[in-house]
Every structure is written in structure tokens, then in C-alpha cells.
């Protein structure tokens, strides 16, 4: 089933996939055990002439066992997950390689690049609709903002998603490790244009990124 996952192109995605696989093995094994046991009971203990059912009200030892064992398994799972969650969501990086703002609005993403002065809100900022350009193997920090309703910034290939709350600034960071173009759909119902609200993440090689930087800002100067 997990073959259906899109290709993972980020460092963070590796952690998400790791827990995806653990969940998959845990749940599949449990399901098989339960299903086989149930099928066996239905066959072995079906009504047969002359055979009476066992008069049993339960077994306290079993109750304790099948309370403690799942608890331990899940506890380990959860503690491992927590370490990862803290890395992925608690503290945005202090010195990312690339800073970008993404504004979610009905019905597109507005990507704001700070330009050479690396400050937002200055005249050298560049705004693009729906296209996020980043260099490969560099850490990207996005500040998510919203203008109207709740949207959700989702990059399946990066495995990360973050709801955008209008009125707040929410950090979102990742490091892409493969070049290419990947879709960035909105993942929270945001109105009639929710379907089709998407952008593209373009992960450049170092060279290609430098070229894009030059072209994008010279185009901007031409316009102004």
C-alpha cells in the first residue's frame, strides 16, 4: 500500500515516511492476528450438535496482558513520534538558507521573495503567483500568512502540511534533496475554488537557481 506514496524529496519527509512504515507494519500485523483468530473461532466454535458452549465469564490475567502489551507498544511509538514532531514543528531554524513568505488567499498562493536585501516589505521584494523557487539541498523557511479563510499549505512530495490561519504568521521549514517540479495543493476547504488551488515547487540545481534569481529580478526591474 505504501508504494502509492509520491516520491519523497525532502529530509523531513524521511522522518514522516519512517513513522508511516512503522504504523503500517504494526497495524497490518495486528489486523492479520485479529482476523485469523476471529476466522478460526468462527470455524472451530460454530454450532455443532451435542457440543455446549464454554461457560466462562472472562480471565483477569488475559485482561491485564492485553491491556499492558498494547500500552507498551503504543507508548514506545508515541515517544519516538514525539521526538520527530518536536524537530519538525517546534522551533523554526534561526539561520535558514532561504527565506520566503507564502500568503494563502482565495484561490492561489502568493509567494513573496525578500530579494537581495533579505528583508520583507521592502521595494526589492518579488511577488509570484503560485511558483516557489528554491535551491536543492538548502534549508528553506517559509512564513505562512493568510488573507481570508483557513487554507492549508501542502507539498505531498515534501510530506509536510501546515494550516494557514488568517491573522497569524506560522513557520514552515524543509530541506529539499532532489531537483524537479512538484505540486503544492491547498488542503483545507476554502470555498468554491478550493479544488484546483495549487502551486508548484521548483527545486533548482545551484546553477539553475542562480540563473533564476538573476532573471527574476531583472524582469522585475524591467517592469518598474
Amino acid at each position: 500500500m505504501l508504494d502509492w506514496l509520491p516520491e519523497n524529496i525532502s529530509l523531513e519527509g524521511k522522518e514522516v515516511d519512517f513513522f508511516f512504515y512503522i504504523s503500517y507494519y504494526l497495524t497490518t500485523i495486528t489486523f492479520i492476528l485479529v482476523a485469523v483468530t476471529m476466522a478460526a473461532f468462527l470455524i472451530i466454535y460454530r454450532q455443532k450438535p451435542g457440543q455446549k458452549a464454554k461457560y466462562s465469564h472472562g480471565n483477569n490475567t488475559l485482561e491485564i496482558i492485553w491491556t499492558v502489551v498494547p500500552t507498551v507498544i503504543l507508548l514506545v511509538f508515541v515517544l519516538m513520534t514525539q521526538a520527530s514532531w518536536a524537530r519538525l514543528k517546534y522551533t523554526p531554524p534561526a539561520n535558514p538558507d532561504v527565506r520566503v513568505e507564502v500568503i494563502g488567499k482565495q484561490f492561489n498562493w502568493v509567494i513573496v521573495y525578500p530579494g537581495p536585501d533579505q528583508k520583507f516589505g521592502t521595494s526589492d521584494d518579488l511577488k509570484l503567483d503560485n511558483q516557489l523557487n528554491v535551491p536543492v539541498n538548502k534549508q528553506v523557511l517559509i512564513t505562512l500568512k493568510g488573507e481570508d479563510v483557513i487554507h492549508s499549505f501542502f507539498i505531498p512530495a515534501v510530506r509536510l502540511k501546515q494550516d494557514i490561519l488568517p491573522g497569524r504568521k506560522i513557520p514552515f521549514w524543509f530541506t529539499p534533496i532532489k531537483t524537479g517540479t512538484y505540486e503544492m495543493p491547498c488542503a483545507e476547504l476554502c470555498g468554491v475554488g478550493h479544488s484546483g488551488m495549487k502551486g508548484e515547487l521548483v527545486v533548482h540545481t545551484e546553477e539553475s537557481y542562480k540563473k533564476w534569481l538573476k532573471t527574476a529580478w531583472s524582469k522585475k526591474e524591467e517592469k518598474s
Partner: protein
Amino acid sequence: MSESNHTSSTHDDHHSHGGFWSTYIFSFDHKTIGKQFLWLGLLMMIVGGLLALMFRWQLAWPVEKFDTAIWGLSWLSDENPFLPEGKMGPDVYNMFVTMHATIMVFLVVMPILVGCFGNFLIPLMIGARDMAFPWLNMLSFWTAVLGAIVMSWGFFVEGGHASAGWTGYAPLSTVSDYTGVEWGQNLWAISLFILSLSSLMGSVNYITTIINMRTKGMNWFRMPLSIWALFITAILGLLALPVLGSACALMIFDRVFETAFFNPAKGGEPLLWQHLFWYFGHPEVYILVLPAMGMASDILSVFSRKPVFGYRAMVYAMSSIAFLSWIVWGHHMFQSGMNPALGTAFMMTTLVIAIPSAIKTFNWLGTLWGGSIRFTLPMLHALAFVILFVVGGLSGIYMASNVVDIYIHDTYFIVAHFHYVIFGGTMFAIFGGIAYWFPKMFSTYFDSALGKVHFWLTFIFFNLAFFPMHILGVGGHMRRIYDPTQYEYLADLQPMNVFITLAAAGMGLGQIPFALNFFGSVFSLSGKLYKHFSQIFTSLIVGFISYKSVAFLLEGITKPVITNTTRTISGVVSIVFFIIIYRYLVRNMKIFGELAVQNPWDANTLEWVAPTPAPHGNFGPELPVVFRNPYEYSVPGETEDWAPQTTPLKPQADGASH
């Protein structure tokens, strides 16, 4: 209320003292009110189901890309208010998705599970004559009807019905400009407010009745698990529904009176809506499943002829689930933008709440172990409940991990999960409960043969429709999107969307035998014409589904042209299935309306001590006295493998009754 205890030969004779209106419409009798809730729920299930089939149609064949006319069903997409030019737009799609869920949760599952079974079973199973507050009981039903009317009205107002999802996140739902929906969303909120009042009335009644009106000898730990479950559910309802009502009131204030509780542009907080909604919403989902668990426990025990394995553990498990359900709501909000530290806290509590459900599953298996299992119709549904609930519960493990949830939140993985627990779980328990208690409710039998055909059609096509949704979710397919073909990375998954829609259509058709059975059995349509019609129509449905299934298998589901060879093979297979099902039905169906005996299942619980039909007051001049636990089946040394709870204990059996 008169206390007649004569059994009569038809099931409406004993109401001869009242008129039509006080017997069937404004009745104070809990049994009638329970049946009224059942009719409400079943009627709304048709609406909710059709809405789903409509938007599944769009998902499989998005309107911009395909002719909406398919297979001679072009008349379905003729111009109408919902389909201008015969096409579904994204606004209508969002509306159908929203209303499908809203109707299924609030107007189908709650009325049937809590309104019908709660009302019908509680007094009968605890040995009471009626609910503590019969007038309030009647009011609770008519309030629910008012809520249903207000909810339905929203379809006919300008701007359409609510379309912000059943979760109604603000500010999409609180500022009309964002959706174009005006009064529809207001009516949605008003209706939910009214429905929450109806639930409150029910909760007050159930709690009071169970605490105060248990008959002599009916100690707490002699109550059947159905009643424990309904009691715990009523407490959850009492505490949770007011939160929903309040949140909806605040939504109305924001929409109509220009307050700013949830509107960030005016200083409000969108997350507040989510916290309020899910603080209600999580206990709500346990309201939707606990009575099903209780009923499944009872049915499994009766048809294994064994006590429930770990009865007290089951009670403690349900109680812990209820208690814990108040502190897990944030797992619906892991990605919402709330402080990630809260995500940590809620993940821990969510881990804990998984344990009691696991305990219950093992106890159900323990009940089957060593049994003498009869595969009656109610038993089939209860068994399906167990295994499908396990699937749903296990998929919950993925999302309990907040890291995995980053990816699967708002994808079809979530949709698969909740359909497995609510449909695979609760709905099958409802079908099982209807089949099991039908003789007591309607004095006739629910036909077992026709019921089994319905069971298998539903079970097979439910799994075919919903299991692939896990795969869609793994592929990153979002929820609530109108046209999946707009996304390149979803292109490989689109055939699965087609498959799911076809399976859902099969499942929808599979409900027709249930309707035929229900009508025939409730109204005692004992004539040959109706019976033959049911047999032929059901067999035709199976034949048709077989024909289409084989055709799709041979030609694939995306290719529109069917060759003559395919037609021939499909035709042959469909004729074979038609014959098999027809012969099965002809040989095994009974006459609709055959009068039921008082205790057709040889079950111990008190409702079977009451006559069929049970009169007003349920038990005749003397209330039953209880001496036994509810699950004393196959007690060693006794001649029968069952004993009603009113059977006095023999001295040597005394120690064995725990």
C-alpha cells in the same frame, strides 16, 4: 396509560382505546417514540446516501471532462436548480459533501442509534414501564423533526445550503462573502442548535430512567451492555451537545449580528471555532459508536450462547473511553496552527484512549471463543461490526501519530478511517440491532433470507468502496476537492476514484432489499405478489451488479466501450447469479408478517420477558424481578442453555453467576 396484558392477534389491536393521532403521532409510549426515530433516521439515510452518490459521480467523471450522460442515465443530469445545464459546479459539490456528512451524523446515526434504540430498549431491558419523563420524550422526537425540517429547508434558499464542510470551519462559514452562501449556513447552525436541544432532552430522560427506574434485582452490574452503553452515551450527550449548540449560536451571532467571535479581520479567533467544535466533536464520535458496541456485545453473546467475556472490563472500558474522550479533541487539530506543544499533549492522551477500544475487541473475540455460534442475520451484522471496527480503529493509529498526520490530515485516509468506524462499525451494528429487535418492535419477523442477501451486498460493496480510500490518502489525495483531475500527481489514482464510485453505486443498490424487507415486514405485506416482487427485484439487482462487475473486470473501468464477448460473458454470469439468489430466496424466505413468538432468540434479557407486542406499561400488572446476570448462557447443570434474568438462581449455581 392502561395496563392491558392480553396479547392480541394483530399488532395494533391494543391501541383501541386511543385515536390514530395519540397512538401513532403524538404518543407518549417510549416504544412508539423509538420507532418514530427509526423512521426519521431511515428516511434521512436515503437523502444522505443519494447526496454521496451524486458527488461520487462528479469525482469519478468530473463534469468539465466528461459528458454527464452515462449508461442511459442522462435524465439524471437534466437541467434543474442543483445542476444548471445538467452540470454540477464546485459550489453544489461543496454543498453536497457538507450536507451528506451533516445529515448522516445528526439525522441518521444519532436518531437511529440513540433515539430509536435508546428509547425502545432502556425501559424494556431494565424492567421499567416507560421512561421517567414520557412527555419530554415525545417532545424530544418532535424537536428532532423540527431540526430535520429546518435542515432540509436550507436546500431551497437562495445561495444554496451550507457548504463549508460538516465541520464548518470559520471564517469560511461565518462570513458569507467567502462562500456565497447566505441563509443556508444560518439554517444549518439553527438546525444543529435545535437538534442539540432534542439530544439534551433525550439524555436527561435516559439518565434519570436508568438511575431511578431499574426494577427490583436489576443491579448496575446486572444491566446488559446495551444499557450501560446507552447510559454512558447519554452522559456524553448531556455534556457535549450544549457545546455544539453554543458554538452554533456564536456562529449565528457572527453571521447575522456582526459579532466577531471567529472573524480575524475584526479581532476574532478562527481557532476558537475549531476548539469548540472538536470539544463537542470528539465525545460526539463516541456517542456515535458506544451504543453500537453495547448492542454488538449483546448480540455476540446471545448467538455464541456464552456470557460476554470480561463483562466488567467492558463496562470499565466504555467508562474510560467516555472519560478520556474529553481530553483528546486536539488530535483533530494537530496541523491547525495551534501551538505544537499542544499537539504533543493530545497525542499522548489519544494513545491512552486507544487502549480501552483494544480491550473491547479482545473481549469480543473472547466471547466467540468456545462458543456454539449460530450465524443468524443479527450475528452476521455483529461479526461484521467487530472486524470492520478493527480496521477503522487501526487506521486511527496512523493519525494518532502527529507526524504521520502531517501528511494524511485532510486526505482520503481520514475519510476511510471514519467511514470504517461509523459505517463499518455503527451502521452494521444498527442493521444487526434492527434484525435482532425487530420481532419485539414490530411483532413480525424481519425476513432472514432477504436480510442475508442485503448483508452480503452491503458488506462486500462497503469494503470495495472504502478500502481503496486508504490508498487514495496514501497517494496524497485531499478531501473535499471537486475535480481530482486538476492535479498531475493524482492522475494515477483517478481509476481508483472511478472504482470507488462504482462500488458505492453497488452498495446503494444493495440497500433496496433492505427497504423491501423492512416495508414488507413492518406492514405485514403477506401477499404473494409482494413476496414474488421482492424476490425477483432483489435477484435482478444482484444480476445487474454481477453483469456490471464482470464487464468492468473484463474491459477495465475507464474504457467506455463494451465488446460483444464481454456482453456475453457478463450476461451469462449475471444470469447464473440471478438464478442462485432467486432460488435461495424462494427456498428460504418466509411470509412477510408472520407473527413473531415472544422470545425467538432464546435470549435472557428482560425485553424478551415482555409480551409481543408489548402493551403500554410493558410488563403487565407485576413488574419483573431480576435474579440473574444478563449473560447466563450454557450454565453447567441446567437443562436449557439460556435462562431469563427473572429465573431464580438455584442454590448451587449462586457462586457461578459472577
